[in-house]
């Protein structure tokens, strides 16, 4: 599973890092961290950043009275502070068989698994692990606690959240696994992860989301119920997005589906309509819980799409604070 001697730099191309550098990963919701950080905490009073004035009520400590306001207005106001903390991030990568689909040649410097190198194709799993690594690196560089899990019908490998210096290497080892011959069950994986999670956490789920939308909805509902934030990164191959094939041939499913005789020229429009409907359904489900969804084209670079997503989240959080 782990690749001996794998270099962490393999997972981060300079191009991706350059595109991500201006952004900070911020939790849209208030993070429940245990260390000082840059994310908003629900606990107030013990930090240095002023938040607001509140009228004094009996029982309040007089240490927080604003005497200057009392001197000017003869009224008692208590100063409130906002404590900032770090963010807990758990990245879940879909390691099911459908993620082993890819039509692009290997991207140099983007890492990838042994299977990728053998087949010479850049798969959705490769794209997902590259994106996960980029996010993890970003979090670690912000001193956020980050953990990684690879799952299919259940968790196949996981690294607990941590912000230590050795965490990056552990994450890379975990991401070096390969897809398995099983279908992705978001509910099962999320259940397992929630059992290990006590603080509020940002869950980043990287998958093609081609499975049953109902299973995904139930997993997202569970996250929402526990007060966690989530981002859904849909990894889809360019050919899946466009069906730019002019063939009449049998199509074989990667997850054991029966073969299907298809003339792509005749069904292209219907397929694209179905794809649109499916992605819109996923998007609706996620937004119903206040979560973000972003579609990734595996033929395109990770950086710009990820940067756009983070920029959007930063804008939402920043705007809310101001």
């Amino acid at each position, binding site marked *: 599973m782990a690749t001996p001697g794998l270099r962490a730099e393999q997972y981060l191309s300079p191009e991706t890092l350059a595109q991500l550098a201006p952004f900070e990963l911020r939790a849209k919701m208030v993070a429940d961290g245990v260390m000082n950080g840059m994310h908003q905490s629900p606990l107030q009073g013990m930090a240095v950043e002023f938040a607001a004035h509140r009228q004094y009520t009996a029982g309040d400590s007089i240490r927080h009275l604003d005497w200057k306001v009392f001197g000017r207005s003869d009224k008692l106001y208590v100063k409130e502070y906002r404590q900032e903390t770090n963010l807990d991030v758990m990245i879940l990568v879909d390691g099911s068989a459908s993620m082993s*689909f890819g039509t692009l040649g290997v991207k140099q410097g983007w890492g990838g698994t042994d299977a990728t190198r053998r087949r010479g194709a850049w798969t*959705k799993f490769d794209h997902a692990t590259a994106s996960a690594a980029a996010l993890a690196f970003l979090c670690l560089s912000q001193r956020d606690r980050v953990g990684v899990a690879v799952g299919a019908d259940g968790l196949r490998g996981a690294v607990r959240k941590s912000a230590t210096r050795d965490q990056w290497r552990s994450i890379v080892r975990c991401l070096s696994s390969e897809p398995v011959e099983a279908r992705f069950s978001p509910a099962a994986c999320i259940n397992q992860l929630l059992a290990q999670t006590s603080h509020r956490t940002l869950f980043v789920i990287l998958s*093609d989301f*081609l499975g049953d939308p109902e299973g995904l909805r139930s997993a997202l509902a569970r996250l929402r119920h526990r007060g966690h934030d989530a981002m859904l990164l849909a990894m889809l191959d360019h050919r899946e997005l466009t069906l730019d094939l002019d063939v009449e041939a049998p199509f074989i*499913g990667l997850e054991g589906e029966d073969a299907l005789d298809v003339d792509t020229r005749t*069904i292209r429009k219907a397929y694209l309509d179905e794809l649109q409907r499916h992605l819109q359904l996923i998007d609706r489900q996620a937004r119903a819980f206040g979560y973000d969804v972003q579609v990734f084209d595996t033929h395109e670079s990770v950086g710009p799409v990820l940067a756009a997503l983070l920029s959007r989240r930063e804008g939402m959080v920043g705007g809310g604070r101001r």
Partner: protein
Amino acid sequence: MTFISPWLAVAGAAAMALPILIHLFLRRRQKPIEWAAMELLRRAVQQSQRARRVERWILLVLRCLALLLVGLAIARPATVTAISMNQPVVLAVVLDDSVASRAATSSTTPGQTAFEAARTACIESIRALPSGSLVHMFTTSGSIEHTSEAVLPDRAVAMLGALEPTYEPSRVRQAVDRADDALRRMTMPGRIVLASSFSRGAIDTEAQVLPATKATLEIRDVGSDDTGTAAIVSMVQRTLGPQSTGSITVDVAVTRPSHEEARRRIPVTVTDVLTDRAATADAIFIEGSPRAVATVTLVVDPALTEHAWMATIPSDRQPADDLRAATISTVSADPVLVVDRERLDIDEGSSAQWIERALEPVAGMGLAHRRMDPSDVRPGSLKGSTSIIICRPELLDAAGWAECSAACESGALVVIVPPTDETFVEWQDPCAALLGPGVTIRRDQVSHDPPQRLQPQQPTSPITQLIASELTELVAPIEVNRSVVIEGPSTTLSPILVMDDGTPMMVLATKGRGVAVMFATAPVPSWSTLATKPIFVPLVQETIRQGEVLLDAGGSVTIGLGRLPEGTTELRPIRGSASQDVSLTIDPAGVIVGDEAKPGIMQAITAQTASAGSSRTESLVALNVDPAACDPQRNDPARLAAWLNQTLTTPSSAVTVTNTTQSSTSASVWLLVAAALVILTETLLGRTFSVPEPKAT
């Protein structure tokens, strides 16, 4: 309903299978494709695949239908026209009495010629006529012209019985046209019966006979070989290597109409009449040239001083063409005569040496030659020489010039090269006189500084015809420093090579039965770079070879039956058991009197020698008109009938060949229109069914 070309209908039906096979082949060839989004694919397939499959089958059926309709249209559907047996008609009988009809064909009774079989068929047709019918008589040779009025059947049968085959080529088209014209003047229903063996010799493929319908007739597609239009026009003997080897080469010039294929090999066989030795070589036609030369090498007995050869085209077994194809030469073997002093050391690099090297670049290979001292050129010394190259004209005296002129007039090739040394001897006038009347050669040589080059586009000349395609490239590097100016009327001199300023570098003149060629510059480095350039060897050799082809050998060479030697009164066979005791008399018009011509080699006896009582061979004539030896290839009667139907102008007259068919042109047109509509429908449906290009998600 039938088809003029039923095999095209079959081909059309067979072509229908093509899209089906392609369809099935493409279906089976695809490898399975792995796919992740199978559920989406399955839902999309459920939506559209079923409708699309129906559309695809509709398109496939339309494509097959279009191919079938086109095939049927090309096959030209025809209807069989039944002519009432009791209705009086005018029957135009066209009988093939050409020379080809003398051949015995496999389809006739053994011993019966094609003419007899055709005549029998005509008589049967006439006797089958209902009472009151009339008959028009026509022959393909045009030997009888009873077009003015129709005759009764009995009279027609009697006329047919009196007919004999001719030696004329067949003119089917003209005969049928005449019959058609005659029928159009009649009020009764008409019918044409064309009785012929339909061998290739029976249909003249000359362009002037079938001016506009040659492509429609497609005669050339019928036979396996179209060499029937080629004709041998001359034969010149040449020695290859030393005489002792007994090897002799013979150049045989062959012509064919210019509309033939651009490049084609025609085998030519030369047979030694006396020893029966034969050899074959190919005459290779070059694009744009109707003439080619086959060089045949024969082994001969060195002890014999005279030989007779007969050249034939083996694959051309049609008598109509062979009438023009027999040639015989009795020229004895002789090398090219180079007139110059004996070779001396001080002459190193002379014109003669450069020319000798060009004649025979490798010892034993090329054109044999020998030197003759100019002082030895005396009356009678050049007798028997075919090619004479005068390299030192200034050393010839008046007697020498007279002998050269006489040799040229009697059928020799004389090539003259200007002298390279400064000389005060006036050689120009006798040389100009040899070239022809009105020709002058300026006394002063002209020096060119800078050197003259040759025009890239050289005039067309029979001397350079075989190297014409490369001539531009070959003449490019030639530089001329000095030259003599040859002037003369264009009727006498024709340029072979021309310099940049328009003055000729090489000219050709016809003198009597011979040919004279003159270089304006000498092939030595001080005069020009001609001798050192790649053109020189082919130019010299072609000058000799093509020049000799142009010679009119007159009494020594006779071409075929149509061109007997002037004054010939009698032909006596010199070999061949079949003609041993036959002597043919020739009338003043040159036509054989009495018995038919017999094949073989004949002595042509002139009137003078005959009257003097001392018969001697003035020339040999080859008559190879031997219908029994012919193996005519048959044309397809159905195709011929289709051609005749198409070219006739009277719709009411049908041509009977093997059956009576009338091509329905309108049916073909309607089929083509239907095919076009089907194709249009297929295109429109294809566009309607087609899926628009996807946009990126």
